[in-house]
């Protein structure tokens, strides 16, 4: 370095520096691209409760494994180099072993950096992922049976998963109880996926960005807007005119009322004098 006054060695010095800079630059570019690829969480990997959204999490998690250590059920693992998520970061696979949703959330308390957000103190508000019944063709409840296992094991039963009743058109005389996930309450713990009785689970937990859709920000729900405004936004509300036989009245929510003056003979089973489309109480 002292020989910088010599033009020969100054040239050498600059050349060496350029060489190093290029080498390191190329190495850095490779590493950067690799890091960029690993920024998206693969579908099967679920982060511990309170994890910041990817890739913020990968900037905050220092891969110390304290959450792994303080998990009383040994659920969490640190990713190894061959796993396809950022090396050293914690995750669990719901189908193997789901989160037990401890009330005191020890994994979050153990996190020294806040990669697991310390503001989350109610485990029921965790959003580790979101369950989705991805295969209606194999789900036993969708086939008309009463499996119900995912519903029964859900720690937030009747809120995160409900059984929605619907007519079984195959048998025509039974009800189907369809497991339905509600994103508002689902914590993504993975119990439903773990306990699905099928060989491959029909209900699966995915990272939020994979499981959830998003409405355009300009979308407005007419019925919500109406409620907010206290009245219809289309003013004045237009009265729908029904073209009914004489003596009949149709009110939304109440259905048809009134009496037919002359009972005309139509096909058996149909309510006399009423158009086919108006059977039942809803349109």
């Amino acid at each position, binding site marked *: 370095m002292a020989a910088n006054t010599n033009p020969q060695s100054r040239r050498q010095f600059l050349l*060496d520096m350029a*060489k*190093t*800079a290029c*080498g*390191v*630059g190329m*190495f*850095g570019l490779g*590493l*950067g691209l*690799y*890091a*960029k690829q*690993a*920024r998206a969480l693969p579908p099967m990997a679920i982060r511990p409760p309170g994890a*910041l959204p990817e*890739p*913020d999490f*990968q*900037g*905050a*998690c*220092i*891969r*110390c*494994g*304290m959450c*792994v*250590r*303080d998990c009383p059920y040994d659920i969490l*693992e*640190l990713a*190894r*180099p*061959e*796993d396809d998520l*950022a*090396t*050293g970061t914690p995750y669990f696979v719901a189908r193997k072993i789901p989160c037990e949703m401890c009330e005191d959330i020890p994994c979050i308390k153990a*996190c*020294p*950096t*806040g*990669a697991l957000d*310390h503001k989350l103190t109610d485990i029921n508000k965790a959003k580790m992922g979101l369950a989705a019944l991805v295969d209606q063709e194999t789900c036993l409840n969708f086939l008309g049976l009463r499996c119900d296992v995912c519903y029964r094991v859900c720690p937030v039963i009747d809120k995160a998963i409900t059984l929605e009743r619907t007519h079984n058109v195959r048998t025509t005389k039974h009800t189907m109880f369809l497991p339905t996930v509600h994103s508002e309450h689902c914590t993504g713990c993975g119990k439903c996926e773990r306990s699905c009785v099928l060989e491959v689970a029909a209900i699966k937990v995915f990272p939020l960005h994979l499981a959830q859709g998003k409405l355009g920000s300009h979308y407005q729900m007419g019925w919500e807007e109406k409620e907010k405004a206290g009245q219809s936004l289309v003013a004045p509300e237009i009265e729908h005119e029904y073209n009914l036989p004489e003596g009949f009245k149709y009110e939304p929510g109440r259905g048809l009322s009134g009496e037919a003056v002359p009972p005309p003979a139509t096909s058996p089973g149909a309510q006399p004098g009423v158009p086919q489309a108006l059977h039942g109480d809803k349109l």
Partner: protein
Amino acid sequence: MSTDRNIGVDAVLAKGWLGAHKWLLLRRTSQLGILALFLLGPFAGIWIVKGNLAYSLTLDILPLADPYVLLQSLLAGHIPERLALIGVAIVIGFYVLVGGRSYCSWVCPVNMVTDSAAWLRRRFGIKSGARFSRRTRYWILAMTLILAGTTGTIAWEMLNPVSMLHRGLIFGLGTAWAIILTVFLFDLFVSPDGWCGHLCPVGAFYSLIGKASLLRVNAAQRAACNDCMDCFVVCPEPQVIKPALKGASKGLGPVINSAHCTNCGRCIDVCSKEVFGFGLRFINKADNNAPQGETAALGNRP
């Protein structure tokens, strides 16, 4: 080559085998002991230390955090919680006192890997090797910090052999062994002291912390040097020795002031004339008679 095999023979004759390997043994005890403390939890259920070198909690009370990884996290846009900040402060304070790169030679598990490679190089007289600037590590350090800022992730941790080996031993190695083997073979065949002495940004970072560290190796008895060159051969950063050992005529003090010195103490071990010892950086008069009593005392304590 035959001379290489005789490194330290004079020292063994003069001080006995134990005397000539004192610091090496202490260092291995420290490296393995720290590793053992971390492993006791997962393998024996005795939880003295939890975590790994990135962050650990000892006896549920003492937090220690790696300032390098937290700096990257900070550049990636995340401000850590209190415990990590306390841990960083303790670690920085400690290495400012004992020399940043003491981390490399007394704590880092990769040191044992690269030391083995260096030992095999000497043992089998492997002279081959690409020589490149030891400053490359600072370029890589800069690159990792820039990457943290531009990708918003701690990108270097995807590859870092230091944390990968340590984390791997504690939490499961996976294919991290391949990265460690690469480092070993690189040091053995491609470049002497290639990883720790030229490339590793962790060491580069810790060298910056320890730039003004209190504890330093010195050549207090440099007048006794018989030019056997053993210290130069065995030192992982041999460029740091010369100013202290041979600088008397230039008016340079006997303290090895370079931040690259890892305070490993191999030079102390391998010297038959007991030229080197540990001391404080301030006791550094060019006249090497005055301070020798105090400074040599640490290194020569039996």
